[in-house]
């Protein structure tokens, strides 16, 4: 349980909370994508912090590499879709997305 007392764990939790906050409050889609990146990096930091100084440190780094890879793919698709919507609507504000509702 000592892991939850480590400062770096709190740093990761704060990053994660910042990501959630940004996602909730920001209206610009690019900034929303950035907030999502923050959340994924908080997860990475937790992976690395949890294994620091143990025999599994290398293993945890490899998990983090996988997550970085997935995050890149996700943002690539996300940006492409934001761009496609921007071309159609000329607006990258999240509130512009309101053709579908009910």
């Amino acid at each position, binding site marked *: *349980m000592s892991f939850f007392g480590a400062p770096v764990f709190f740093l990761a939790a704060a990053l994660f909370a910042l*990501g959630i906050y940004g996602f909730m409050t920001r209206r610009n889609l690019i900034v929303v994508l950035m907030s999502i990146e923050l959340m994924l990096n908080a*997860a990475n930091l937790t992976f690395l912090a949890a294994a620091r100084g143990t025999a599994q440190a290398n293993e945890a780094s490899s*998990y983090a590499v996988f997550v970085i890879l997935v995050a890149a*793919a996700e943002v690539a698709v996300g940006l492409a879709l*934001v761009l*496609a*919507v921007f071309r159609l609507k000329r607006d990258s504000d999240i509130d512009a997305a309101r053709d579908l509702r009910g």
Partner: protein
Amino acid sequence: MNLLREELSWITPELCLTLFACVALLVDLFVQKGRESVMVGFFSLMGLLATAFFLYRQYGVTPPAQPVFGCMVVDPFSTLFKLFAVGALAFVVLFTMLSRQTRPDGYGEFYFILLCAGLGAFFLASTYNLLLMYLGLELLSIASYILAGYAKGNRRSGEAAMKYVIFGAVASGVMLYGFTLLYGMTGSIDLTVIGPKLRDQFALDHGTIPISVATGLCLAGFAYKISAAPFHFWTPDVYEGAPTPVTTFLAVASKGAGFAALLRFLQAGFIPDRTLGGPEAMMGYSDKLGTLVAVLAALTMTLGNLAALGQTNLKRMLAYSSIAHAGYVLMGVATMNREGFSSVLFYLVVYYFMNLGAFGVVMYYANTTGDEQIDDLKGLGWRSPLVAITMVAFLVALVGLPPTAGFIGKWFLFTAAVKKGFLWLAVVAGINSAISLFYYFRVARAMWLRPEEEAKYATVHASPAFAALLLVLAVGTVWFGVGFDSLLRYCDYSQNLLR
């Protein structure tokens, strides 16, 4: 070398699907212009058939004692879900070939991405390794984002895909953070190791707050994937905006894979071995988790059904209906025991038939008329009786009335919930089924109870291929309502070997 060959032989279905997906991309280049949809589609179907063949060969074979390559579990449970995914993919490919909604060019990529999404579902259903589970989920999700936005010039398709990618990325990020917390607590990403470690922690009575936070974050991600409340709000928009074959894929294959992963997650990590008698605290925690899922189930079905009542767009109504059905299925998950889990498997198979059918009819209707409103269905029964009759079979199954499979599936879910002591949940589900009768009936009324003169559209006969597809699905829907023995036995059997 022999060991490697043996391990590889266990993942032939995955290898086969990957190979066909990649080659489908190449086939597209060599096919005559204008015929890509049909040719690449047939090629993908061949690939799915080959994959199904390899899966069938694993049926009934004693599964390997250790996970293949340390992370892929091959057992009847995963084989059932893989067959489920392959079948759903085959129908989606056929629907795409018959649909006019997807773009006329770029079919090669479309089928490639579709098969990749299927591969993601394969991984999601067959692992206890949290990292592979996350990768499978992302493979499935990222492919789904692209598919949802495939109708590029269409504003609604673009908007659906954008909402999907934003909410989806957040949900998977939340889930990943939950996974890392579990890793931090136990030092392992293997659920079969995490389970016993958590049991030790419960025995030491360290308090359950960190475990609760981690579990809650993970559950949020799963709830998103299966569109359960309070993470369901993306569903109607995405289902309405995406091209109909893609919606079918999301509603059936994607949701099924989400449930498979959820069952594995709960089974391995949070259900104490009753025969061994886990620590008291863990029993209590598992029951509390069950109650939480039960509350989510009640919330999900009620929200889904109440929102569906007011819908005028057929696809949007089916989206809310699929939220409601996620609620019914969660009822079986909430029991946290073997009987409940096997009723979940049974209901998912039933759900597969009735929803593929219902979305197939929507696709036919949208294709021939360019319209998706419920009211404009009027007179369809007199003009295209075959399509309308099969639609009635699907609707009756969705309500859950005999003699269809929908009734039997719900029956098992209800009994499992009542036996576990969730009588209130069964009552809520019963009231919800009664509510659902109203909006499903509205569709049937529009089709049959209006005179033929009011029909908005002239007769358009379903193509023979399409009629055959609908008939197969309708026969399946009714057949499993009567001859459900063998399916039930298989569901139970696959639970038996679920480690």
